[in-house]
Structures are given as C-alpha cells and as structure tokens.
C-alpha cells in the first residue's frame, strides 16, 4: 500500500454506536449543561444587549461610514479629482467640482454626495484617493433614517464626521 495513504478508521460499527441512545445521552448532557449554566445566570450569557450595549471591538481597519478629511487649517482636503467616483463599483459617489479660491490647490468639490443606500462599503474610494481626503474610519456602523433622502450624505455631513481612531486630518495634504 502506498504510504501516502492514511486509512481513517470508520466509526459507527460498534454496538454502542448502533444503539444511538448512548450518543443521544451524551449529546443531551452537553446541551443540558449549557442550558442550566445559562438559565442559572442569564446575564453571564456572552451576547451584546445591542441597543443598550454598544460594541467595543471595532478596530482601526473597520470600514464604517465615510468622512471627508480636513487640512490642518480646516479647509477641505478633497481636490475633486473624481478618482473615488471612478473607482466606485456601485456608482454611489456624485461630485461636482468648482474652482478653489483659498490658495491650496486648483479644484475643490462644490457638492459631494454619497448615496449610502447604494454604497457597498468596499473601501475602494479610500484606496483610490490620492489626497487621503476620504476615509472610512469613523467607526459608525449603524445608519438610520426615516426616508431614502436621509441616507444621501452631502458634503457638510461628510465633513462633520469625526475620525474615531486619532488621525483627524488628511495625511497627504498640508
């Protein structure tokens, strides 16, 4: 026999296995153990009482809701290059560019909309951005609204989101 072949012994042919009942007894022992442990101290069950308890394990790499970053002097970092809306696979970023007057670059977005109902949170816009102007490090995982329009984020909303992990400003523009 080829020594690369490992023969795994087949289980289930002994009388104990064929009776089924010992196996069921073992299984019921396990389930009852969990049941009594949990029923004797319900608050020790390792779940999140969600709306009251918020998750604490959101990491820096978590792709939350988008934000537009600022430069150190609080002006917008975005230069309206359309890289993000080009990279976007779900076509949910709508930018209108305008001339820039504050002496930093030539262009800035006049309007910047992200339709978060279309967005699939893939993070390609963040990867594509040459100015570190769009980020997904807000840590916001839950977005609610009462109409579809509530989910279309405009430039002011996106600028007002704060980074949750320390880095506030764009690292590529000064």
């Amino acid at each position, binding site marked *: 026999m080829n020594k690369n072949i490992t023969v795994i012994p087949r289980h289930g042919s002994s009388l104990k296995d064929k009776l089924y*009942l010992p196996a*069921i007894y073992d*299984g*019921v022992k*396990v*389930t*009852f153990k*969990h*049941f009594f442990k*949990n*029923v*004797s*101290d*319900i*608050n020790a*069950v*390792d*779940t999140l*009482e969600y709306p*009251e*308890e918020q998750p604490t394990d959101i990491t820096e790499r978590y792709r939350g809701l988008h934000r537009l970053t600022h430069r150190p002097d609080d002006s917008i970092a975005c230069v309206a290059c359309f890289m993000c809306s080009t990279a976007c696979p779900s076509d949910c970023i709508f930018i209108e560019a305008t001339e820039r007057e504050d002496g930093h670059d030539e262009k800035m977005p006049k309007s910047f909309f992200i339709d978060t109902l279309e967005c699939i949170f893939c993070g390609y816009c963040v990867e594509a951005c040459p100015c570190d102007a769009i980020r997904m490090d807000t840590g916001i995982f839950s977005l609610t609204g009462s109409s579809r329009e509530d989910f279309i984020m405009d430039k002011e909303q996106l600028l007002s989101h704060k980074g949750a992990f320390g880095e506030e400003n764009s690292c590529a523009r000064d």
Partner: protein
Amino acid sequence: MSTVAIVIAISSFLLGTLLALLTIPVLVWLERRIASLIQDRLGPNRTNVFGFRLGGVVQSFADVVKLLLKEEYYPSHIKMGKWLFMLAPVITFAAALLAFMAIPFADTLHINGEALRVQALPIDFGVFWYLAVGAIGVLGVIFGGWLSHNKYALLGASRAGSMVISYELPLGLSILAFIITYDTIDFNAMVQWQSGVFFGFLPAWGILVQPLASIILIVSLFAETNRNPFTVAEGESEIVAGYMTEHTAMKFAMYFMGEYVAMNTASAVIITVIFGGYQIPWVSTEMMLQNFSVFAGVLMITVPLIVALLIRWMRKNNTVRPTVTTDSGRNFETKVLTIALLAMTALIEVILLYLIFFAESTLANSITVMLFQIVVFVAKLMMFNIFFIVIRWTVPRFRYDQIQHLGWYYLLPLSLLNLFITALVVVGVSS
C-alpha cells in the same frame, strides 16, 4: 347527575381545552428560549405589555396576532380539491387537540357514590381513542401536501406517508405491551396501576416495568409528532417547507400550532403511560386522602420553599447587566411578581391550615388532592415538553429511509419480542 358532577365535567373539559390551547404560545416561547439558551444566546426577551415581559412569553401572543392579520393567500394553480387543501391544516390541528382530550388530569373523584372522571372526555377507552384519533393527524399532512400541487409539498407528503408506515406498527405494538401489562385500555386505570410499587421499593412506573416498550413508545411518538430527529415531512435544506410550502397565514399557523399540540399530546401520553401520570412516586391517591393532614403539612412546607427558590432566581435573573443604564421596568416587574407569588403562597397556606384544623369535609379534601394532582400533571407535562425541545436541539435529523430501516428492522422486531415476553410473563404470573 348531581350539580357537583356537572361542575366537575364542565371544569375538566375547560381545563383540558385550556391546557391544550394555552400551552401552544408557552411551548413556542419555550422552544425559542431553550434553543437559544442551549446555543448560548438569549432568545426573544424584549416584548412586553406595560413593562411585563414574563421572560418574553408575550412574544408568542404578538406572533399569533401577526399570523391572524396576515394576508390569506390562495394559490391560483389549485383547481381541484381546494376545500380539502383548506381543511387539511384543520384536520392535523383538530386530531392533535382531540387526542389530548382523553388524558386524565387527576384521579377519579368519588363523591357521594358517584365516580367523576377528571378528563376532558370522560371515556374509559382512552388508549384506543388516542391511537385512532392521533393517527388521523398525519392525514392532514398528506392531504395538505398532495393537494398543494407543488413538487416540494408532494415530496413532503410522500415522506410523511413513509413515516406513517415506519412508526405506526411499533407504536401500536409497544402500547399493546402496556395494555397487557396494565390489563386495561383506560388511561386512568393505567395511572392507578403505576401508583403501586415494583420489587418492593421502585415506583411501578412503566419505564421501570417495561423499559424496552417505553423506549420504543418514546421513539415512535417522537416520529408521530414529526419532531427531530424525525423531521422529514419538512426540511429547509432539501424540500423548503415540505408539505406546508403553499400554506400561508392562518393555514400555516394551524399546521404550526398542530405540531405543538401534537407534541403536548405525545408528552401527555408518555407521562400517563410510562411516567405515572398525575401521581408522584410511591404515593397513591388513597394514601393522600387517608393521611390528609400529613399531606397538607408537607405541602405547606414545600410550596413556600419552591416559591422562595423561584423568587430568588427571578431577583437574580430578571435584571439587566450592570453596564446597561436603563432597566426597562424589570425591577418593577420583579416587585409585582414577587408580591403576587407571596400572596398566592399565603392564600394556599391559609386554605391548607383551614382544611387541616377546621374542615371535616371529605369533598374539600378530595378536591384539594385533585388540584394537587393537576399541578403535578402540568409540571410533568412541561418537563417532558422541555425534554422534547432539548432533543430537537441536540440530535441531527435522520434520512427518511433510515427511519424506515429503524422502524422495520429494529423497532418492529424488538416490540414483537417484547410483546412475546410480556405475554409469557403475564400468563406465567396469573396462572
């Protein structure tokens, strides 16, 4: 018939109906909560009425409202047999409900020479009633699946048919062994037989007298109720919802409730036939009636103990975690329920004290014993229902040919062998 007889007949009918129908939401809730606790989750625990959650049982009533208000949808491709398609869930539900009616909830009351059965249907051929009516339930499944004119539903129905031929024979033969042992077809007489002792010290419960037939009975009843490990008539992964694929809203709810009523009925039959029914071990009804003051005294000690344990558990567990700021009215609920439980205990104590020291009426005594037996019956019923649920969330499913294999190659020969030995022993003992 005297007034007492009429009152007992009506109240036991009401009790049977309530016990069968009111346990449905409780069982649905128990199923979901126990499943989640087994899997280290919490399950539905938020729904409340004025802050009263009762552990989340209110969720089931919300579900009932949802199912009642859903759109009643009739598949337009069903041209023939529409009335039977509509009737099928009702057959399943009604069969399970009617089969439950033959179960005794307490021992026969003897009042002024009249023997009053505490059964919803006061019949003395309960076993045959159960076998005849209980077996109709699966017809509803087969009709419903067949007349849906849907391939999944037809597959489910044919699987249900394959189940019937697998379990009905072992079920009947194992019950026959019990009929020979107890020498009766009356559920109540079976329970009375089991209140004796066996080998001098063991309670003469069916599970100890007839262990093999008991196991076959339990396995066959698991199959009859269509519960795990014998869920074949429906299977999410292979045939969608099986026989009830085309049934919506209340028609679906009928099947759904029928499953829980059937589970309840099966539990009731199992505890009546093999776990001593409404009796506690070693203690027969006559013993309780003859030594009533001792019985009442023991009850007066145990009831506060049980209530104290319950309140302690509730105070510990009906809380939110320290990290959660809003308590959602749980402290208030605990307080109200504690007061209600204490008041109930005090009432029971006062009544028992009165019965021990002042009342000389045998009627009051026997009614107290009857109520106690009903409580024991319900407690056992719920314990066995919980066993059913735990088994469902423990064991994987059988394939339907494996069930036929099990039924025909193992259960049928074993039950025949058991029947043979039982008959030999019974003939040997009696001659």
